[in-house]
């Protein structure tokens, strides 16, 4: 799926010098002067403002009283007395928000560790070995990507019921332990690992497992970073499946707990509290993004981008 066939000249170029920064369309030397510079920044800043406005609104919403929720677009600036921290207080007092956060943190971390490890192993095998059944395996993998998860929802639930995994974290962690998408990403990245290095390692008596760990992984380090971020984000926001298998309230994750606040019109929604929970739940992923930002782009460059 992610295997792309670039035109010959480009692939030659990529093979030659993968990491140089290309001068871009707008940034060439002929478009000189401050005019271009200012236009470029003006456009980017405007777009950034549009992109960030919902966040700003969200943050403001967490400080608004229920009555003010719609009366003021952002905050009642002129009346600081109307600002309130009560949403935060309520969230922690009336809802087990800390427990949700803790559970989400555990599940997302555990999931990410396992899925990054197993997917990179699988990707390594697909990229660097010839083995019987590789082609059908790839076909099966690709076709699973076409399946909407909702089709399998009911069957998955009954399966968990039969094996007695309902209401356990195993029902979330185990079936999700390998990702097809991850394996394909790593397969792309691992193709860049020179065969000579692996051979040299074998001559030195390295086991295949050690080759993966000590030769392949360091080379695809950016990919690992990128995929760490992707899978953590996926786990952090995953919602449909966990809410179906988890039943004990103390086991709920952030999205389950927060979406339970959403009511039908008859059953009022505490929007202020919900927005506060949403805002707080974004913070951990945002931190991770900052940490991995550089790896993220470099990693995708070795994964999906190249042949």
């Amino acid at each position, binding site marked *: 799926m992610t295997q792309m066939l670039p035109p010959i000249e480009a692939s030659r170029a990529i093979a030659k010098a993968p990491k140089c920064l290309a001068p871009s369309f707008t940034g060439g030397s002929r478009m000189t002067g401050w005019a271009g510079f200012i236009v470029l920044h003006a456009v980017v800043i405007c777009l950034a403002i549009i992109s960030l406005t919902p966040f700003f609104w969200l943050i403001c919403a967490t400080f608004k009283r*229920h009555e003010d929720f719609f009366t003021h677009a952002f905050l009642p600036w002129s009346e600081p007395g109307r600002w309130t921290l009560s949403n935060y207080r309520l969230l922690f007092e009336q809802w087990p928000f800390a427990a949700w956060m803790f559970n989400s943190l555990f*599940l997302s971390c555990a999931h990410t*560790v396992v899925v990054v490890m197993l997917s990179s192993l699988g990707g390594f095998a697909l990229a660097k070995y010839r083995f019987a059944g590789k082609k059908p395996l790839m076909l099966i993998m690709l076709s699973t990507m076409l399946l909407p998860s909702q089709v399998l929802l009911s069957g998955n639930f009954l399966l968990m019921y039969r094996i007695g995994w309902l209401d356990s974290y195993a029902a979330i962690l185990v079936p999700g332990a390998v990702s097809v998408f991850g394996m394909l990403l790593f397969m792309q990245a691992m193709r860049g690992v020179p065969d000579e290095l692996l051979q040299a390692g074998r001559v030195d008596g390295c086991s295949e497992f050690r080759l993966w760990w*000590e030769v392949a992984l360091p080379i695809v380090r950016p990919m*690992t970073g990128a995929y*760490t971020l992707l899978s953590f984000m996926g786990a952090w926001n995953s919602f449909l499946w966990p809410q179906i298998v988890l039943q004990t309230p103390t086991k709920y994750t952030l999205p389950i707990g927060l979406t339970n606040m959403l009511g039908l019109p008859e059953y009022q929604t505490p929007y202020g509290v919900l927005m506060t929970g949403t805002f707080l739940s974004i913070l951990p992923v945002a931190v991770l993004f900052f940490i991995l930002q550089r790896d993220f782009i470099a990693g995708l460059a070795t994964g999906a981008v190249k042949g």
Partner: protein
Amino acid sequence: MSFHLGKPILVMLFIAVIAGAVALNRPNQKKADLTLWVFADSHYKTYEKLVPTFQERTGLSVNLNLVSGQAMDLRMSSLFMTNPTSEQLPEVVEIEIGWVGKYFRPPVDEIGLIPLNDMLKESGWYDKIIRSRFAPWTKDDIIFGIPHDVHPVTLTYRDDLYLEAGIDLSTVKTWPELHEACLKFEKHWRGRGFRERHAIEASTGDSGFIQQILLQRHINLVDQHSKVHINDPRVTQTVAFYAQMVAGPRAVGGVSSGAAGAPLSKDLNDGNLCAFMTPDWRISIIKRYADQVGGKMRMMPLPKFDPTDSATSTWGGSMMGITKACKHPKDAFKLIEFLYLSEEGLAMRQQSTDIIPPLMSVWDQPVYQQPDPFFGGQKGQAMFIDLARQIPERYTTPASTIAGMSLTFVLTQAVNYVQDHGPAGLEAECQKMLDVAARDLERRVAHWKVD
């Protein structure tokens, strides 16, 4: 040896191991004598306060769980299909009126809930609860749920703004009269530059309003015998009427404020939407957020089309039922009694909402006869109770959801028609579209027949 998966993964591994030691040792919820699933946060918070008293009094342990509607749907429909007595099912469950139809697909003896007729009769509740409110929870005369509410509907309006426009809305008796009054209202306020002031809340994209009127006219889109009434001439008339109320040259409807509660209050305070269909549950929401319109609001029974129509409708609702997984239905019944029908339960409800209980035996109590300053001294609760006695029967079937969708689809087309061609020929067009919808629904119902 360095860690080649990168520092973030190392940190996550660390967190996972530490947190895992705690998280994985979290005890599963102990199986209680009774487990109750609730889908609404507000109900959950009410029952949370009541359950300890119940446990003390009966010695039965209760697990109260808040489960989203989606999760509830999926878990219950999967388990009802394969193993209706599974331990994973709750003993007692609260179900919303729009979601219950699907559980009525199988023949009655295979429905995942247990019949309550006998227990209701033995305990005497059967004669105390308003009969018509059993309708949504009944299939083939077997009752599967105890109603939480009646939810009669009134029309609530900004009396001050209507009077300023020279209209006394309380004299309006029919829907066409209401439409005329609304037109007059809009003309008055448009002339004074109020661009966002609308006579009545009515959206183009939602057939809920129409379904309210249809219930008033004693029409269920699909009735208890799975018969389809979506192309009844009265439906056509209603759709055509409503389409003109929200679109075209004679439009008076203002788009609904969207999500419940907060935005609505703003519209009320500013006088953007000046009349609403208000079931009893909506009153407490309005009161809570619209702090500036106290005393300016009035309430009236719904206008009618025909004299035989009911003066009210019904909107929303929920029930509690007992699943086949319950080993001691008598205990489960006690819990429902306590939460829904006992003095404590009713008192708790009285505190937080204006929702009247389906219990006729308490309707004469003085609490429900108080004048309400919010409505300028009108006896709001008394009006609801008066209307509750005339409440039309609403049935739920597996086809009800789809029928509602089909009606919305027809409404959309009708709205487009009015906008493009005006009202001429609208009824004929609606009839045509509704006939198509009826055929589609009938085909669906036939497809579902298993025998």
